[in-house]
């Protein structure tokens, strides 16, 4: 595999709701500055934001890594949180373990992972209880992407 054209890392703090969303926002601005197609930027921004909020809320914080390649843009959200014990269940719309406090700020609908799936061309989740979660997302770049 060839080296990425660009790679950026963004750090995400656990339960820091003041700054939550900053990583996805910074990433989005970068993609807009590069001049990527608006629909591609929107899909990546939504996927990044959902993954970031999951790290803030469920994953003890983590890192969001963006890589631009020739054929696709890849996002990796990596945390050392509690992991997901039943991934099939977690992928279902409406399943959530979020607390009432989290619901009060507008999250915990159990729509985040299904949302990500809708936005990306590839979604891979590696997780083990007690060992964290790695969410890999890719959006393909067509000929008109930039």
């Amino acid at each position, binding site marked *: 595999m060839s080296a990425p054209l660009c790679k950026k890392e963004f750090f995400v703090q656990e339960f820091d*709701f*003041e700054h*939550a*969303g900053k990583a*996805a*926002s910074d990433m*989005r601005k970068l993609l807009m500055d590069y001049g990527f197609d*608006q*629909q591609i930027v*929107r*899909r990546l*921004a*939504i996927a*990044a*934001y*959902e993954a970031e*909020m999951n790290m803030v809320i469920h994953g003890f914080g983590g890192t969001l890594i963006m890589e631009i390649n020739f054929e696709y843009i890849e996002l990796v959200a990596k945390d050392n949180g509690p992991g997901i014990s039943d991934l099939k269940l977690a992928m279902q719309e409406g399943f959530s373990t979020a607390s009432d406090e989290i619901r009060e*700020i*507008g*999250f915990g*609908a*159990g*729509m*985040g992972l*299904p*949302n990500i799936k*809708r*936005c990306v061309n590839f979604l891979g989740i590696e997780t083990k209880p007690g060992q964290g979660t790695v969410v890999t997302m890719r959006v393909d770049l067509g000929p008109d992407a930039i």
Partner: protein
Amino acid sequence: MNLYDIATKLDASILTPKLDLSRQVHCAYGADLLSDVLAFTRPSTLLLTGLINIQVVRTAEMAELGGIVVVRGKPVHRSLQELACACKIPLLRTRMTMFESCGRLYQSGIKPCIKDPGCECNVCPSV
């Protein structure tokens, strides 16, 4: 209808006076669940919500919404106004309830948020 007209219909105050309110709004979505907003809106949608935390503006930024109306006269913190301004998301506040706000806008011809017939993307909702 543009955002000035919306403000008039809802007797709303404008919390981001520096932003351009002449942009057109065709559809709206009312929700207090942000993942629902991310899933079921399309660009330029107007969001009506009871949420007043920072994440509501972040959500609007990611989903490229046309503006936010805070309903039921909830107090909006300065930091939210500043972030909305920085993200170029117009922010309005009305004393009306969610029900009345949505009802008035619907009556004025604002549509629910559904997919454009010609749109082939797999992101905007196909309800």
